[in-house]
């Protein structure tokens, strides 16, 4: 019985001793695919228009390692993006965060498409209407007189 109690105590102690070590490591090492899945939505802050997953500079290798470290520490994808924005500014994001002037990027293209659609619709409906000349004549004070004269000539 004493041996069993000693064995249990040893197991508990060894387990307790292992827990902080596991916590320090922070979790399993993330795979290259997991790192690249996040890196593809981030851009190299010092190269022109190069996504982080395909960037070959030493700086990009450091940032990919940073992503791996953060993943291992338990950061979520969004937390990693937030971290990169805090460290390097919003220009690292593949898509700018909505807010302030950035709204223009999201609102202008659909607004232009809608405006274009409206103009096309307006032009098409205008073509279907009566000829413009007749419409204008009807609005003048001489319109009725001219129409009467035309009728008189026809008859």
């Amino acid at each position, binding site marked *: 019985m004493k041996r069993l109690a000693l064995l249990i105590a040893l197991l508990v102690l060894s387990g307790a001793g292992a827990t902080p070590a596991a916590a320090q490591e922070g979790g399993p090492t993330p795979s290259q695919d997991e790192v690249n899945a996040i890196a593809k939505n981030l851009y190299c802050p010092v190269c022109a228009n190069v996504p982080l997953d395909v960037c070959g500079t030493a700086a990009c290798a*450091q940032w990919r390692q940073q992503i791996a470290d953060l993943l291992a520490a338990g950061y979520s994808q969004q937390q990693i993006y937030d971290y990169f924005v805090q460290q390097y500014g919003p220009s690292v994001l593949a898509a700018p965060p909505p807010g302030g002037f950035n709204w223009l990027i999201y609102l202008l293209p659909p607004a232009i498409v809608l405006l274009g659609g409206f103009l096309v619709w307006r032009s098409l409906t205008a073509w279907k209407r009566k000829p413009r000349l007749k419409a204008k004549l009807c*609005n003048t004070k001489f319109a009725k007189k001219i129409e009467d004269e035309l009728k008189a000539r026809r008859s």
Partner: protein
Amino acid sequence: MNKPKEEQTSILGRVLAWIFLLAVLALVAVQLDRSQRGVLTRGEAAPDFTLTTFDGQVFGSSEMEGKVVLVNIWASWCKPCEQEAEALQAAWLQYEGRGDVLFLGVDYVDTEKEALAYLDRWDISYPNGPDLGTQIYTAFRARGVPETFIINKMGEVAYVKIGPFQGIDEITSVIDRLLEP
């Protein structure tokens, strides 16, 4: 005489279209102007900024007031930065005890682990910290690393160095001139 409703709508549409077009052009012009301004030049007022160092010290305008301040923008991945690291540290050791000269290292888009390793490798002892959100880099309108700005006691940019210093003399000659009464 009142204009027909259709004509009024057409005029309003044209006015709105012109306002929209002018607003877009104004926005593009402002952005172009910002991007074309280039780095800060001699005589311009230095921008206000605050640097929090890797060990938590904060350097703001009150710490810089009345001092000659050297702001060096660097990164651990920047090879040319290594060329001037030794000269910068040697120059700092010359002025460290005076109290009227301050060196600040601004670490641009870097990872902390590599940045600290870089500082350790070059025995750099003057205050260094990360440029969070590239705010300092943007405020100085820097275009790359390394770039160094030396600010006189009046808070004006007195010297701009694009690229690495070639030696300690290049640094001390500027600072000594600014320290002359």
